[in-house]
């Protein structure tokens, strides 16, 4: 009886997930039926004029990929030092705990507050530095996204960096290596794939971020051509256009949701796979 209850809860989780996938697929059926899967994916048209409606996801897919990868690149110079600081140089000291909780706090700030900060502080700065015409755009969103994913990237990397066996490091020290050389020739090679997995999972976070990006990317339907260009991501277009959507347009938005679901699922799966390999070694 009690075992059945435990089993039932697990089955419920599986059913929920299956139902999620089912309702995403069935909701997007109309859009894929109308345009065809590949035409929908690779078309950058988004025209809600009644009678000649034309929807495609490409502008948003590119917008999502540009902002997320740029955010990933921008976060490396900060998250990697934090990971080394807490996982290697000051491992298990008070100061590492302080830096660790500061970074944790970054993860606790809601997306919408990041968006507000970006809008009221970062946008004027971007404008006055001449990086973007109105302050909005790909670069502005990526900077805020980068700050948002630092905690995820650094905490996972720090975990793997701190797991590097001491004997290996001691071996290198005994040969006269400096700490930098130990980090470069022992820590990075040993913890490398774990660090990589951390960044892959951080990328998965960035892909699905909605509110902050919606407030900062400018919400124009075009493929961004430069860093200062405005655009839209898959998540932001759903948030923006959902309110007035029905029929084919709603179905197209759900189709974008399905694509986003697939992309994040694949990225997260890869990250977890690499991580499990590393842990299992």
């Amino acid at each position, binding site marked *: *009886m*009690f*075992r059945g*209850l*435990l089993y039932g*809860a*697990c089955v*419920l*989780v*599986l059913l*929920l*997930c299956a*139902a*999620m996938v089912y*309702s*995403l697929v069935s*909701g997007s059926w109309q859009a894929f039926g109308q345009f065809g899967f590949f035409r929908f994916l690779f078309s950058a048209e988004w025209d809600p004029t009644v009678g000649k409606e034309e929807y495609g996801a490409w502008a948003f897919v590119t917008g999502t990929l540009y902002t997320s990868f740029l955010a990933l690149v921008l976060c490396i*110079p900060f*998250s990697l*030092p*934090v990971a*080394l*600081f807490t996982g290697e140089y000051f491992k298990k000291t008070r100061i590492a705990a302080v*830096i660790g909780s*500061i970074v*944790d*706090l*970054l993860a*606790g*700030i*809601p*997306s*919408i*507050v*990041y968006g*507000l*900060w970006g809008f*009221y502080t970062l946008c004027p700065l971007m404008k006055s530095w001449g990086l973007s015409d109105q302050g909005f755009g790909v670069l502005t969103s990526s900077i805020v996204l980068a*700050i948002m994913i*630092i905690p995820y990237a*650094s905490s996972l990397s720090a975990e793997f960096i701190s797991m590097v066996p001491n004997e290996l490091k001691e071996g290198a020290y005994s040969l006269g290596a*400096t*700490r*930098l*050389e130990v980090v470069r020739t022992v820590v990075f090679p040993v913890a490398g794939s774990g660090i990589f997995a951390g960044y892959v999972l951080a990328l998965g976070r960035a892909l*699905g971020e*909605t*509110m902050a990006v919606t*407030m900062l990317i400018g919400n124009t339907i075009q493929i961004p051509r430069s860093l200062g260009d405005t655009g839209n991501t898959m*998540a932001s277009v*759903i*948030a923006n256009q*959902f309110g007035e959507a029905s029929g084919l347009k709603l179905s197209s938005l*759900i189709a974008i*949701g399905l694509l*986003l*679901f697939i992309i*994040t*699922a694949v990225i*997260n799966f890869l990250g977890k796979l690499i991580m499990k390999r590393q842990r299992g070694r």
Partner: protein
Amino acid sequence: METNTSVKKSRWIKDRVFFAGVCVFSGLTAIPLVLIIWEVLKKGYRQLNWSFFTEEAPNSLEAMLAVNAGDLIPGGVANGLVGSLLMVLMAVVIAVPVGILAGIRLSEHPESRFSGVVRSVAELLQGTPSIVIGLIIYGWVVKPLGSYSGFAGGIALAMLMLPLIIRSTEETLKMLPASLKEAGLALGASYSTVILRVLLPSAFGGLFTGILLAVSRVLGETAPLMLTALGASAIEWNIFEPMSALPLQIWEFYNDPNLAGLIWSTSLFLLLLILALNLLAKRIARKWKV
């Protein structure tokens, strides 16, 4: 000999420069946090008064008149506060029992293939962007019931909480010594008694911490609520009506220039709430260490 020492020196210098770089860039990471908190504090503290918690959001006109007269904007966020409370409560009621039961099963049979599948699916759920969850709950609840509702919002938040609870339950139970369970079984207690009376109470601290952290995580969620609860300008106790929430109110204030003055106090309050939950969770985790 000459070159040898200079090589040595350059290696030493590189090492020191790298170390300094690590420290400086780690420190720089704190800057955005300080800037954000500073801005929210500076612009928001004035508005945090009694009426902020007890009154509903003002309409645009009242706010404009007050701002023009140089006063504080009247009214507050009571509608969002009530909505957030109700929806988070619903999410807890739905997600915690299911999550804990599933987590127990995973920790009881960690190696089985079925557990592996459930674990992967929970991870999939955890990685799903919250806006996609919103879309799905829109299709599941809002469409069939014909109206946006706090109920739909609560379910959306429950979906976001569920994988977090499963994970924290499994991790906590894994840390309990096996002898605890064995002792219970050896005394002749049934399987369910051992789990409900021995394992869960010993794991209480960890489970509670997990729940608090999950609550603090979903408290700031905006996107899924935009698609499910929609928002309301008055206090709403009926869960089958559109309902507001603190993050939804920030979004509404942001979109109405006359109400922009309320953005910061609402954000400040939300940040304080999340911070308090996190600190409480950490304390409990330390005190009840299993």
